[in-house]
């Protein structure tokens, strides 16, 4: 069933993009409504997952332009959520990593919507550049440059934070 297979993926994409759980759930519901409306337009020769993610991307960008979520604050970084790649850190390293992730989580809000979505697909959801370009409908070079710009912006936030930490 479509809901069982894709709800988690769409919810996480919406959550990472909007930054709030409530907004992400609303957007997920709207994306699935659109999905059921547009199923007749799906070309069976195309990759369904990529088609659905493109539909989700279009919806999220449209909704973002209408409501401008960046004016709202993101939810606090939820440390209780299970991490996707748990490593056997010592408690001090684990704390540092959590701090970094908080900075990155808040930093996502500072990125323009199209760059944020490219970063989410490539760096968080682990897609290849080609897949991201396919989903976003952009040339490969544009996608690479957007992702690199976004990562650089986040890295600068992290450096700023670390430099402040060193000063304290």
């Amino acid at each position, binding site marked *: 069933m479509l809901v069982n297979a894709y709800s988690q993926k769409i919810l996480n994409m919406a959550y990472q993009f909007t930054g709030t759980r409530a907004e992400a*759930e609303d957007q997920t519901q709207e994306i699935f*409504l659109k999905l059921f409306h547009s199923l007749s337009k799906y070309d069976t020769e195309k990759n369904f997952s990529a088609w659905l993610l493109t539909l989700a991307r279009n919806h999220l960008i449209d909704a973002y332009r209408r409501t401008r979520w960046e004016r709202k604050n993101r939810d606090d970084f939820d440390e209780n959520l299970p991490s996707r790649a748990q490593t056997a850190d010592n408690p001090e390293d684990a704390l540092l990593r959590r701090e970094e992730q908080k900075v990155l989580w808040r930093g996502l809000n500072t990125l323009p919507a199209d760059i944020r979505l490219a970063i989410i697909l490539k*760096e968080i959801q682990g897609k290849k550049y080609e897949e991201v370009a396919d989903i976003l409908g952009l040339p490969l070079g544009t996608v690479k440059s957007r992702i690199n710009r976004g990562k*650089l912006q986040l890295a600068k936030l992290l*450096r700023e934070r670390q430099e402040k930490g060193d000063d304290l």
Partner: protein
Amino acid sequence: MTCKKIEELLPFSAENELGAEDRRLVEAHLADCPSCRRLLDCLKQTEAGLARFPEVEASPALMARLKAIPSSEKKKARSRIRVPFFQVKPSLQPVLAGAFFLLVFTSALLFTPAGGRLLKSLDRQLHRGYSQVEKLYAKAESLADSLNSKKDEVIVTLKNVSPLRRDDSE
């Protein structure tokens, strides 16, 4: 090379996508610039941090809402099936039937050879009638002209035969 230009190359450096020349430039700059070295470290931490971002679980309430969508969409689709309006208003049925037959008749006239011949003969009759009317109208005009020209003569004649004029001459 300035820090700003090196910064632009750092993401490619982190992914080992730099050409030999650029890599040499970046490495030379990094050897002397602690700020850019730190930025490169932060870039790697950013990539690792994003890859470890936690995932949210869909709540049971959301799953219930999502699973309810297909059935509610089917209901909406059923309600969207339109009933023809002549079924909604039976009083319009004779009008629609008349319009239908008129349409069939007009189509038969316009698009069949027999209809074409009939239309041609109607056209011919119409033109013949029209030319006859024109001829009658021309005859009537010439009659009116000849009557006008005779009018003066008739008046003079009438004056000559008038009894009053005879009395005057006597």
